[in-house]
């Protein structure tokens, strides 16, 4: 692929990545949202975070199969507990990393 061809491809990838990030900001930040939509949006973050994490904890990647007992899942238990107890992001990240690292050493 030529230098220009590559740059055009990167630009196109950049545009299709940028549009979904920008469009709602421009459209929604300037108007009053209907009540049901605002209520829906309030539930979205918990849903997104949970949806992002679930496969990491409960599934192998290649091939995609269900799995209980990944070190990611086991390390999630103390991490979750730490988050509930301390409500500290820094502490939780460090506890999670150390538990995961320790589990990887034994498993």
């Amino acid at each position: 692929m030529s230098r220009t061809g590559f740059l055009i491809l990167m630009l196109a990838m950049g545009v299709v990545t940028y549009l979904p990030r920008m469009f709602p900001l421009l459209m929604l930040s300037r108007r009053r949202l209907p009540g049901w939509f605002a209520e829906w949006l309030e539930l979205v973050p918990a849903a997104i975070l949970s949806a992002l994490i679930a496969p990491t904890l409960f599934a192998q990647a290649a091939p995609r199969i269900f799995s209980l007992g990944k070190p990611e899942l086991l390390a999630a238990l103390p991490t979750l507990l730490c988050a509930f107890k301390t409500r500290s992001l820094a502490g939780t990240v460090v506890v999670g990393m150390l538990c995961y690292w320790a589990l990887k050493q034994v498993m």
Partner: protein
Amino acid sequence: MPDLIDIENKGFGRAGLTAAWPICLGYFPIGLSLGVLAQKMGLAPWQMAAMSLFVFAGGSQFIAVAMLESGASSLAIVSTVFMINLRHLLMSSVLAVHLRGVSRRFLALFAYGITDESFAVNLTRFNQGGWDVRSALTLNHATNATWVISSVIGVYLGQLLPPGAVGVDYALTGMFICLLVFQLRGPIFIITALIAAFCSLLAYLWLPGNAYVIIASSLAATAGLALKRAKRKREGKP
């Protein structure tokens, strides 16, 4: 009073940098391994830099590098990247609520840095209150800089860190778990999160690609809203 404004801006900048550290910590090893992969696939450092600058989306960059190597058509690559990053529609919609009265130029600049990670941290901060949009923008750019730099270092130097050093590959998962806990502000949030996890897992196992995030989170938020409304109706409130 330019001095005073400058000092204020510095404060907001520092707050953004401080909040960005778990993301940067998590991005660094991922960026490195992207660089290593890109180098194996024959990409030059400038090509890696261009991709990380233009695209700034980890998952789709890994896939794009692999597709480039396999000789996929540009159209196939661009549409795959588009599909993977559609989930940011939802995140951007949620953040829009917190960016009222901000100029279009600022929004355009801010949009560039919306990733799963910056979304999660900025949203948590906005909810806690007192989070300035300038801090949020600084956080976006700090994470972007980490991403660009680490991916280019990966091309030049290869696997600088031993894989899995002190569990650093768990930094982002740990961060997401903690930010999820911060979101659980009542029973309806917990139920929504459980539905999302269940749907996400099913979608991940049954569907190819990365559609599982956007499918599961819209389904779960809709189910959560329906449950909330049904409960309100039962209790006879409007």
